[in-house]
């Protein structure tokens, strides 16, 4: 992280870095996720938080409140009846916030091309990462979180959603 190390006499070592880097280092290593288990993928999301795929290693802890969460993992089928709530919860999350769309249903509607399904969660809220699979394995979700960490580290720290971002991934 540190770009330059300068040592003055016998005092403490001094590390120099940019604000962007240190802020993003903190953000990317403590991604708290909002529990958003909508359907089958929610079960795999729970499994990735449980014993074998221990998500705490990545600094990802599932939170029940949108106020405490940074990343929303949309795990499952988004129906038109639910779409209003997902937008409301997304708006309640504090900036900076990211969205992972987990599974085919959340990406594109998947196999459920019916009258009641939103054909892709990105019609309602902006999505940062799309995760293919039906249902994606917990390893896939962990990989997605690692990709998101990579993405966060390359963004400016004072990012603003209203300014169009350059796409990195």
């Amino acid at each position, binding site marked *: 992280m540190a770009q330059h190390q300068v040592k003055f006499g016998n005092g403490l070592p001094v590390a120099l870095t940019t604000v962007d880097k240190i802020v993003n280092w903190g953000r990317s290593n403590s991604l708290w996720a909002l*529990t958003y288990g909508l359907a089958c993928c*929610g079960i795999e999301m729970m499994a990735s938080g449980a*014993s074998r795929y221990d998500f705490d290693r990545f600094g990802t802890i599932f939170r*029940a409140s949108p106020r405490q969460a940074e990343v929303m993992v949309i795990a499952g089928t988004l129906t038109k009846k*639910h779409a209003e709530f997902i937008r409301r919860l997304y708006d309640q999350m504090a900036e900076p916030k990211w969205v992972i769309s987990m599974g085919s249903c959340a990406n594109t509607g998947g196999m459920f091309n019916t009258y009641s*399904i939103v054909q892709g969660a990105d019609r309602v809220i902006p999505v940062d990462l799309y995760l293919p699979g039906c249902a994606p394995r917990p390893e896939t979700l962990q990989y997605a979180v690692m990709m998101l960490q990579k993405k966060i580290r390359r963004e400016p720290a004072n990012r603003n959603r209203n300014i169009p971002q350059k796409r990195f991934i």
Partner: protein
Amino acid sequence: MQQANRLRPFFENLAFDRQDNQMVINFGPQHPSSHGQLRLILHLDGEQVIKANPDIGYLHRGMEKMAENMIYNEFLPTTDRMDYIASSSNNYGFALAVEKLLGIEDKVPRRAKIIRTMLLELNRIVSHEFWLATHALDVGAMSVFLYAFREREWALDLIEDYCGARLTHSAIRIGGVPLDLPEGWTGNLANYLDKVEKAIKNDYEALLDENRIWKMRLENVGIIDKEMARSWATSGIMLRGSGYHWDLRKEMPYEIYSELDFDIPVTDKCDSYGRYKLYMEEMRQSIRILRQLIPLYYSSDSQLMANVPQYISAPKEQIMTQNYSLMQHFVLVTQGMRPPVGEVYVATESPKGELGFYINSQGDPYPYRLKIRTPSFFHTGILQDLLPGYQLADVVTIIGSTNIVFGEVDR
């Protein structure tokens, strides 16, 4: 400041006829312990629930309508996404209904029946472990969640070895099973059964049975008396927890359950704690069934799919060598099987209760109407009768103890 790209929140115009000192709270649909997308509108007097309205439909995917536009084999993977905790039990319910419609349920080979029963019971263990994990987590016991998920992952490993999928198996097809068990699978299964039997005794029950908090939260909470259980059409453990001795595996045996030796645990306690004991006991019975199935598997022939070439594709060797079999196979793949005109209702005992499929066939490759009778739907309805009178904190316990899955409720 109102941002331009934000949706303006939309509130439903629900008419609440409320007294002055009552409070209306909205529970869900996005709530960590609402087991999916259950929305409850609770009227509270202090902390006591006066009135509860379950609101469902947040996971309605239109599966019954989808079925009308799909050939029978196409619809099978969709049934995975209903009760996504125990997928094979849905696959089996649908496959058995179609087999009854075709009249080929006796032609399913014995080895396929044994493998199906193995998968069903393994799914029952997975489902009950998942229930225990989430229920304990909702009530506040984190370590049980971690222990139960550990054993669940081992069971999923076995299923993954067999069919390659963790969650959505599609491992039971119409007319049999597609694959034989891989080498060494039964040995792994026997090891797993020993492990899970120990875990039930040493981990789950040791942590919960005499746990003061667990007993205080569960005992005398969610009492479903006999009359209520009948009038709300409950099934499965919700029914057996109220003292009815009713299990479709015994009452209307399907597969090879009539040959197997197992008990149906029943309790008269009617509360959440009694149901918790039943879940533990059912897991033990599933272990007992699986142990009996392993020797039966080795004494069976190796045929896996029913030999009915007009409905189910013939074995690959036959398709590759005989012209007529190839033609039949081509028609089955491109157009789908055409069952005779008629209707059928088949109920099976899924881990949650009675799972029934009603199929109305007009002789087309597509069902004219397919209705799914899922147990969780009825167990959601009972909440409006069950919750009033309990404290707000008990709501979570009661929802957990009904074991509802929303893929199944809304379809």
